């Protein structure tokens, strides 16, 4: 069953780039059956994308998750959030995939704790880098367990 890792965030805004950085690290691992995408944010057309996978891991920076990261299943029917942004939440995206394309993956949120967001710069804070390493290590083990199971 194919797995998609979808990392999102702005790599030009310090720790906001944790999601894309996670996606890039997973891509470099070259895990069989794992495909990787990254973007600034989730968009509605991603509903069609995720509907084609069995598992999807949404990776994003978090301001308040547990350290070093929080990994948990996602509710596919979470209500729509958003006042004027063009972004969409992962939960809403899953609901949209089911409503429009009749297929919804098992989905998980990988929320990696970040600390520095108020500035421009294409680097992660040292603490965020450590958290990223822990998240990548966890994902490798989780993926192996999924395949073995």
């Amino acid at each position, binding site marked *: 069953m194919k797995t998609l890792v979808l990392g999102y965030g702005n790599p030009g805004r310090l720790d906001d780039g944790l999601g894309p950085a996670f996606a890039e690290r997973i891509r470099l691992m070259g895990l069989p059956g794992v495909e990787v995408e990254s973007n600034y944010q989730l968009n509605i057309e991603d509903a069609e994308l995720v509907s084609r996978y069995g598992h999807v891991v949404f990776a994003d920076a978090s301001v308040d998750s547990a350290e070093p990261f929080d990994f948990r299943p996602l509710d596919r029917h979470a209500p729509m959030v958003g*006042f*004027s942004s063009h972004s969409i939440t*992962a939960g809403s995206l899953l609901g949209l995939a089911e409503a429009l394309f009749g297929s919804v993956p098992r989905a998980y949120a990988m929320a990696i704790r970040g600390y520095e967001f108020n500035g421009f710069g294409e680097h992660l804070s040292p603490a965020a880098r450590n958290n990223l390493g822990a998240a990548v290590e966890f994902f490798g083990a989780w993926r192996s367990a999924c395949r073995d199971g």
Partner: protein
Amino acid sequence: MGTRKIVIEPVTRVEGHGKVTILLDEAGQVSQARLHIVEFRGFERFIQGRPYWEIPVLVQRLCGICPVSHHLAAAKAMDGIVGVDRLTPTAEKMRRLMHYGQMFQSHALHFFHLVSPDLLFGFDADPLERNVIGVARKYPELAVQGVMMRKYGQEIIKATAGKKIHGTGAIPGGINKNLSIAERDGFLKEIDQMLAWCRTSLTIARDYTLEHLDELADFGSFDSNHVSLVRADGAMDLYHGNLRAIDKDGNRIFDQVDYQGYFKYIAEEVKPWSYMKFPFISSLGPETGWYRVGPLARINACDFIDTPEAEVARKDFLSVTDGQPNNITMAYHWARMVELLHAGEKIRELLHDPDLQGGDLVLKGERRGESVGLIEAPRGTLFHHYKVDENDQVTMANLIVSTTNNNTPMNRAVEGVARKYLSGAEITEGLLNRVEVAIRAYDPCLSCATHAMGRMPLVVELHDAAGRTLDRRVRD
């Protein structure tokens, strides 16, 4: 009545929120309503010292919603830095295709994702239903249409910019790739369907506006000046042209202004209660010189549209106001759908142009130290102004983004809605909904520079004359 200083709270991660404060006078009537959009102003400093050729890629970090617009505006400015005033046909047409792809996906996304729930369910519908999921449940064909139009535009961006994120297609003096035959044929297969959907979208926006014209004419509407680029012959041109400003009646304030000298015509005012500046037409001053940009302004300002179906739609649009500029805020949606159709027609026209397969991609001229790039981004006119030293490093950058141009109009719209719909000392659901709808008409980019998963609130606060908070509601 005393005055009260309103302080914007420091913002941590979440750049992309809108905060509205409504101030009552001693009689309990609205004396003032303000929209605070937090804009991070450090970006211009961030790019100082960077080599000029990096800038078209680097500026895409500014915005997760319209990186292509920043990419192209910066590339146009850097064309000037490398001394190129006219690109090769292949380079210009590839950039135009990229830009129309961006316009197409952005307008489709805004209409289907954000606006259609308001129009289909009504302003007073439960927000839990009045959203894209609600549309997907009740009007699944329409929702699929929106997703697929967005995807089509994104694929055009990928084919022209190299990738969807951090595209590198436009470079100083040209472009770094052309469009392959296979890419072209893939887009041509779908273009007729896309145009059919554009017509459907236009009909929805048009019919809604006409059916609710009396209500909408009084909904956050006001007379204003309008600014946009137009071609030398007065046609709408979203990629390149000269600046035109008109007043509420269509009289020209300035016309065919070379945007390299925009700063002689446009100034920016700073107000203590907002991080975002307030641009205005210099000759009129800040009180009366503020203006609107974006689809409504562009339709009002141009003399015609050079694609047949959009031109018919433009005439139909202006017939509502007897050919005069339309100053109805909610007419932005109809104007946006006219532009969606125009973008679709332009994409079709370009796909049939063999210049897109040309190999002459880049030009070089005599190096200059200063240049301006302007583009009509989906939300309106976008200004990029740079100075570059003899070491090729950027020493000055000034950006006026589309949402900043619409700062005063958005404040006016919010104040108008507050005056009309506030009753008593409570922020009702109806008021909150209408404030949301009025701001949304401008399609503001509230999430420039960073996104925030699940945290994109609209905060509305009501203060009495003494500054006490009477009510506070959050829409997230």
